Structure formats: C-alpha cells, structure tokens
C-alpha cells in the first residue's frame, strides 16, 4: 500500500480548502500554511527514500488495477521533482507572507497558491495521460486566478493573453488525448508505451506525438514562448516566482515523460524537430535577454533559455544527457525562484523596472546585491554552484551522442545568460546611488531569509551533487529504459 504517494497532492488541496474557511484570520492562514508546507517537504523526502529502497512504487486509486484505473506512479524522476517543487514553493510562499498586500491575502491568495502546488505535484506523480490533463488544469486554473488577482490594466491585458493561450493549448491537449485513446485504446502511460511499441510508431502515432509536442511546447515555453515574457513579468514577485519556478518545469517534465516513455521510436521527431525547437528557443531567449532593459523581461527570457537547454538533453537522447537535464530541472526550479523573488524585490524597493533607471543599489541593499550575484553565477553554471553539474552532464551526453552543434549552442547560451545577468547586476547595483539612505524603503530581514535560503540551496545542490547523484542516475536510468517503468506499473497485472 503506497497511500503516501497521494499525499503531495492531497496535503496542498486540503490545506487550500481549510484556508478558505480561515479567511478572516490571516494569522491562522499563515500558521496552517507553514505546517502544511513543512509536512509536504517531509512527505516528499520520505517518498524519495522509499523509492530508493523499494524501486518504483505505484498507487491504484480505489484499488482499480492498471490499465483500467487511474494511478499515481512514483519513480526517482517524479519524486525528485515533487521534492524540489515542495521545497521551492515552501520558501516562495514563506516569502509571500511578508510581501503580499492585505487586499490580496483577503482575496484567497494562499488557497490558490496551494491549489497550484497541488496541481504541480499531481502532474509530476500521475501515471495516466488524462489525469495529467486534469492536474494541468488544476494548476492552470489556480495560475489564472493568481495572475489576475489584484487587477491593474497591464496585468489584465497580459493575463487575457495567458488565459487565452492556455485554454487553446488545453483544447489541443484534449484533442491529442482523444486521438491517442482512439488509436491505442488506453490512456495509462505504461500501457500506451506497450501498445505503441507493439504497433510501431507509424504516421498516425507520430502525428499524435507531434500534437502532444505542440501542447507541451506551449505550456513549457519551448519555441512557442511568445506569451511567456509578458505574463511572467506582470504579476508581483512571489506569484511570478511561483509560476517561473514551477509551471514551465511541469511542461518540460511532461515532455520528458511523453517522449522517453511513450513516443521514443521516431528519431526524426526526437532529434530533428525537438532539437531544432530547442536551439531556436535558446537563440530567441538569448536575443530577448540581451535586448530588453526591463529586469522582469530579462528574467523571463532567462526562463526561456533554460527551457531550451533542458530540452537539449531530450534531443540528445542518451542516459548522460537525461541525467544532466534532471539535474538542470532541479537547479532551474530553485534558481528561477530566487531570481524572480530578487527581481520582484528590486522592483518593489525602487519602484522602477528598467536597468537604466536603477543604480548603486549595493549601498542600500548589500545582501540583496550579493544574492543576485550568486544567482548570476548559478545561472551561468559556474562550478561550485547548482547550474554547473547539469550543464556538465548535458555536455557529456552531447559529446557521447556526437551532437556537437547542440553542445555549442547550449554552452554559448551560458555566456549570454551571464552577460544578461551581469548587465542587471552592474547597472542596478554598481554606480552612483540613486536612493538616499533616509528615503530608502526597508527590506526587512524576515523577507530576506527565504531568498537567502534559496541561495543556500543553490550552493547546496552544487556542492552536494554527490549526494543527489544516485537519485538522479536512477531517474535517468528509468528514462533510458522505459521497460523498467512499464514493469513496475503493469508487471503484476500481466503475470
């Protein structure tokens, strides 16, 4: 019995409902939130170690055996994602305690943040395509609320775009699911994989695979990222951080699941289409990151570059590269969380958004400045920090697979990332101080602590990569050998 698997989704959902009734007391809301987040982290850690001991575990809802019932499957990949997502959302929500306006706290900010986390964790754990769609929707509906909450002209305009694009993408998702069910007669991921392998990935199944690719590309911001910079730069810090840290990563995760478990037979889709999309994403993201002067836009384009980089690992398609991508996914959730929190804090503190309008902040807010510097190094992949190990493994994988062009693009993007981030750092933190010490807005310590903890994580993931390595290799091994996943899900049923 593995009921523990449902807890990463159940805890945030229940917390969300309880917070609904605690609306009058913000204080009670915060206490319940903290307790629930801490238990979420504890449960996720427990799942990760459980998988280490018992191998892939699954939970059949209501006791309905696969392929008939809906199930949650926990392998190292999903457990690592759930753990990272839980830790990062804990820190971001803790930051939100100190940074959210009363008005928004009254408008059910926290319940929807929890629903978002529930949807994200559910998407990571589910072993059923339709359930993946449902979890995506839970997550997206919560994000619609969070992005529009509080209003304002720019935000409403951007959120209209965001909602429209996601509704269209969800419709495509549904169409793809219908086609898939019509073709292979099942939506259980492992079962789909078996049937696709039996039937061979012919033109029809490849077309379905491409529809899925488009859907997840829209959600993850792979090549179809035009909606992303606007919608990620309009909401306030904590919300933007939650979205940047979690939402696109779910899309990337779904893409890895779909193309390593189910549709891994067609080299043209994997190598050529996905590879080209990844390269174009990186190039487009780099152009944006260099071109804009709005710090929120620069941060958003950095999200896009990272998505492209992770998908490079999928395009290379070998175990080393998967390992790199998993490391990079973990790193990226943490680093995007801290980046958007810092950027949000800078906008809040100065009231300005352009790098040309800020300068000399290091004198006013030294801690924030150094944390941004740490983030810059982490994003660029400087060795002791978290970005390095992922980049290294993707690079090793690319060399092994002989994809030197992808290797070049991926590593050249690091330089652009470094440049774009240093531009923020040098323009905003160096130079003449624009704010008098007397006039400066206070940055309370309790607001700095969550950011600093994320900074600690950036270092810890880099330095402690050795400790993470067994889990990550296990995740990559399952991706490279889909039969392990299939056996764990369908094994008992067939025998």
């Amino acid at each position: 019995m593995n009921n523990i698997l449902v807890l990463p989704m159940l805890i945030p959902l229940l917390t969300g409902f309880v917070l609904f009734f605690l609306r009058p007391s913000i204080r009670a809301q915060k206490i319940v939130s903290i307790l629930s987040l801490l238990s979420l982290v504890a449960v996720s850690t427990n799942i990760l170690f459980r998988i280490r001991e018992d191998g892939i575990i699954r939970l059949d809802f209501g006791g309905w055996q696969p392929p008939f019932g809906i199930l949650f499957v926990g392998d190292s990949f999903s457990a690592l994602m759930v753990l990272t997502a839980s830790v990062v959302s804990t820190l971001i929500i803790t930051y939100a305690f100190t940074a959210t306006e009363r008005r928004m706290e009254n408008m059910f900010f926290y319940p929807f943040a929890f629903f978002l986390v529930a949807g994200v964790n559910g998407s990571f754990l589910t072993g059923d395509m339709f359930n993946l769609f449902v979890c995506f929707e839970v997550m997206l509906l919560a994000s619609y609320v969070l992005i529009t909450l509080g209003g304002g002209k720019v935000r409403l305009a951007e959120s209209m775009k965001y909602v429209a694009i996601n509704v269209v993408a969800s419709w495509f998702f549904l169409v793809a699911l219908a086609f898939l069910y019509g073709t292979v007669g099942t939506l259980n991921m492992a079962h789909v994989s078996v049937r696709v392998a039996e039937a061979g990935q012919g033109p029809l199944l490849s077309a379905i695979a491409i529809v899925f690719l488009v859907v997840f590309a829209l959600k993850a911001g792979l090549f179809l990222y035009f909606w992303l910079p606007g919608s990620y730069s309009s909401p306030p810090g904590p919300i933007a951080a939650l979205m940047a840290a979690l939402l696109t990563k779910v899309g990337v995760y779904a893409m890895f699941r779909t193309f390593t478990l189910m549709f891994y037979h067609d080299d043209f889709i994997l190598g050529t289409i996905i590879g080209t999309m990844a390269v174009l994403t990186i190039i487009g993201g780099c152009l944006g990151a260099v071109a804009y002067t709005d710090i929120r836009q620069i941060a958003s384009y950095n999200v896009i570059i990272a998505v492209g980089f992770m998908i490079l690992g999928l395009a290379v398609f070998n175990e080393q590269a998967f390992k790199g991508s998993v490391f990079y996914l973990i790193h990226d959730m943490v680093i995007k969380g801290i980046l958007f929190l810092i950027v949000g804090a800078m906008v809040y503190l100065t009231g300005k958004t352009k790098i040309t309008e800020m300068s000399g902040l290091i004198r006013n807010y030294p801690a924030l400045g150094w944390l941004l510097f740490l983030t810059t190094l982490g994003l660029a992949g400087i060795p002791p920090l978290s970005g390095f190990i992922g980049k290294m493994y993707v690079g090793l994988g690319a060399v092994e697979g002989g994809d030197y062009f992808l290797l070049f693009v991926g590593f050249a993007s690091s330089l652009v990332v470094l440049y774009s981030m240093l531009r923020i750092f040098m323009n905003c933190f160096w130079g003449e101080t624009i704010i008098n010490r007397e006039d400066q807005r206070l940055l309370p310590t309790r607001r700095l602590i969550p950011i600093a903890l994320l900074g600690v994580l950036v270092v810890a993931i880099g330095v402690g990569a050795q400790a993470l390595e067994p889990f990550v290799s296990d995740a990559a091994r399952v991706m490279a050998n889909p039969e392990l996943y299939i056996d764990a899900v369908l094994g008992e049923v067939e025998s």
Partner: protein
Amino acid sequence: MKENDVILRTVTRVVVFIILTFGVELFLSGHHNPGGGFVGGLVLSSALVLLYVVFDIETVHQGVPFDFRKIAAFGAMVSLLSGTGAAVLGKPFLTQGFGYFDLPIFGLTELATVTIFEAGVALTVIGTVVTIILSISKDV
C-alpha cells in the same frame, strides 16, 4: 425589478420545489442509473438560479443565507476526505465500500460511501454555479 411578473413568481414558487425534488432524485439514482452528483448538483443549482432571477438577490439571501463560495470549498473538502477515509483504514486512496442494511422505513437498503463523495461533488457544483451567476450579475 419593477416589471409585473406575477405569473413568473407564482409559477416559480411551485416549480422550484419540482426542480429540487428532481435534483435529489437525479443525485440518488446516479448510483446505478444515469445521474449522480454533478448532474444533480447542476439541477439543484438551477433551482437556486431561477430564484435569483425571479426574486432579487437580497430576498433570496434572507431565505438561503449561505456563502456559496464556502459551500463549494466545503463540498470539495468532503469529497477529498471521503477518499482519505479509505487511506486511514489501510486501503488505497479513494477506495469505496458499500453494504446492505435493514433500515426501519426503507427496508433493505444499499448504503455506499461513494454517496458521500457524490454529495461533495454536488455541493461543489451548486456552490460554483451560484457563485459564477452571482458574480456575473454584480457587474451589470
């Protein structure tokens, strides 16, 4: 509303109860036949919406003084907890049970835990539909 809608009001007073009964019937029949919490909830909420359309919001609120957002949250929570019960007893999450009981008036009756789940669904639907209608009506 100042229109002369005596007919509408009179009919509504009767029809609302027919709709409510039909909603409950749909909800209960859903266990073995077409119906269930979602449809039942929709029908039940249509009765409430009809009341809101015919009488004004304040009048209905005097009779039905609930915060429908809370009803929606409560319903979803009931559904969720009905699944958790199984987990506490060591069965997979969302496992449902049923049994036959000899009840005083109803005779031999089948009681199933899935009804609790469905009741949660119905409450969520009612809460959501009424909340949507009320928020739209406020903007006009």
